[in-house]
């Protein structure tokens, strides 16, 4: 029997809540991959995760899981603020096994799942649900999903509002389940840096639509027309970004990090109309490629760009340094 390359095949889904509509014309997720979903609040990340967890049926379109829409599902999801059953940690973690009538080595497997999320089973196994901190509760919730060895693990903001220790434990456990059981990971998060560290590919959502992928910067509208066929949007702290004509005034623009030049000074005699002052927040080495990803805060918005290690050393790029992000109006593209 040949297995399908794709675990999820989404086509033409539409789902609405009040004025908000999520529209995904097509999205395929490969078996064993780790996919991130990023976007601002209300962009549709949680809605997409709920639909992909089969908690709700889309109003239109279909989500095919494991090459068949009606096979026994092996996808499980952990919510942003997970709910623990009003029972002991043990009963919470092995609940999913019990409902499947799998009673083999329950204690041993529960202890292993707890250790996997860095909770000492001797201390935590018989604690009640109200005897846990927020981070510990999230780790127990993750352990109760890991024990099921799902084909797909969907996590909605898994490290939001948790302590550093819990955050590290969650990352390690998630990476482990992918390596050990080839679990497909679908993770939503605001934190792009974190998401980059655990996923292979990031889809960006904006206003219910897929608006770019990878490390692309998303520049939301509204866009206001200026003269000479230029349009602009205003960043939170007042600076403007100029673009060519958008498809509609609310469309989000995609700005690829490779299209941004990082400079210590403003440039003169250049065709690039966008020269925005920014402060370097973070430098991330991109493996052995010699590239460094720079995250800089420009007028209240984080933008990413790439430089070489040589440039970083030559320009003395360090967190807190003032720089200019330079790019052309034509660098902003529309999906």
């Amino acid at each position: 029997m040949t297995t399908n390359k794709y675990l999820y095949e989404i086509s033409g889904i539409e789902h609405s809540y009040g004025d908000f509509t999520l529209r995904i014309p097509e999205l395929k997720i490969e078996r064993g991959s780790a996919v991130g979903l990023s976007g601002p609040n209300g962009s549709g990340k949680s809605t997409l995760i709920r639909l992909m967890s089969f908690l709700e049926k889309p109003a239109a379109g279909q989500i095919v899981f494991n090459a068949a829409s009606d096979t026994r599902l092996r996808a499980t999801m952990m919510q942003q603020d997970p709910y623990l059953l009003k029972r002991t940690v043990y009963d919470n973690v092995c609940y999913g096994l019990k409902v499947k009538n799998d009673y083999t080595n329950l204690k041993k497997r529960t202890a292993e799942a707890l250790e996997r999320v860095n909770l000492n089973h001797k201390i935590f196994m018989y604690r009640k649900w109200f005897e846990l901190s927020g981070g510990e509760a999230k780790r127990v919730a993750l352990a109760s999903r890991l024990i099921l060895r799902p084909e797909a693990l969907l996590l909605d903001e898994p490290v939001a509002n948790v302590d550093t220790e819990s955050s590290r434990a969650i990352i390690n456990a998630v990476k482990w389940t992918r390596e050990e059981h080839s679990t497909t990971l679908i993770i939503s998060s605001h934190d792009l840096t974190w998401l980059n560290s655990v996923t292979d590919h990031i889809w960006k959502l904006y206003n219910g639509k897929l608006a770019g992928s990878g490390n692309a910067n998303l520049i939301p509208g509204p866009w206001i027309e200026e003269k000479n066929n230029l349009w602009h949007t205003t960043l939170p702290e007042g600076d403007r970004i100029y673009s060519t004509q958008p498809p509609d005034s609310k469309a989000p623009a995609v700005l690829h990090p490779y299209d941004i030049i990082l400079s210590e000074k403003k440039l003169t005699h250049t065709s690039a109309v966008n020269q925005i002052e920014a402060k370097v927040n973070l430098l991330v080495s991109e493996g052995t490629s010699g590239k460094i990803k720079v995250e800089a805060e420009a007028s209240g918005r984080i933008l990413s760009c790439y430089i070489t290690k040589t440039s970083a050393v030559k320009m003395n790029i360090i967190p807190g340094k003032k720089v200019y992000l330079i790019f052309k109006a034509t660098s902003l593209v529309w999906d």
Partner: protein
Amino acid sequence: MDFLTEGFFNAFTLLVQGHDETYDAISTTLKVSSFSIMISLIIGLPCGFALSYYNFPGKKQIRAVVDTLLSLPTVVVGLLVYAFITKKGPLGDYNLLFETSGIIVGQVILIIPVVVSLSATGIESLDERLRSTLITLGASPKRILISTLYESRFAVMTAAAAAYGRAISEVGVSMMVGDNIKWHTRTITTAITLETGKGEFAMGIALGIVLLLISFAVNGSLIFFRKRS
């Protein structure tokens, strides 16, 4: 006041000496109310779950009817059940009239609204994330029902205690359907009514004390389970 003091003294004597007629009324009451509460929980809890968990047309109207039935007069239930199970009634062939089984039918009708309404309120107050959690952990619809009831166990126990309290303390159904037949359908409440009418306070007080003790025991267990959980 002497007759009251004497009544209390005689009541304790009856209870201590194991007065047959008194203990028969107690036994009949416990038997009838236990069957009633069991049947009501079996029918009422899934109904309460459905009423709170699912959305369907007419849900609000059904809820309003169930809530109204909480104050259903016991004599009205007695009258209706009597009309149905009397020899001329549609269920006359089942010979339920003047039998404990007839009283059980009446009490079930009386207390089902209590179970449905209070359990539905309890389930409604549960965290909305519970459902998605159970589904994502692979629970079947039957498991979702059981786990949801377990999560709202305090509300379910309160519903059961309130319903049991209504069953053991009602007079209307037991009197009209059971006819207060000695050694057969006489319950604590019908016996108290009869003995008080006859001016025999001792047995009435003895049975009243037992009724209060049952209520304390039920509520005491509720508090105990709540603390233990």
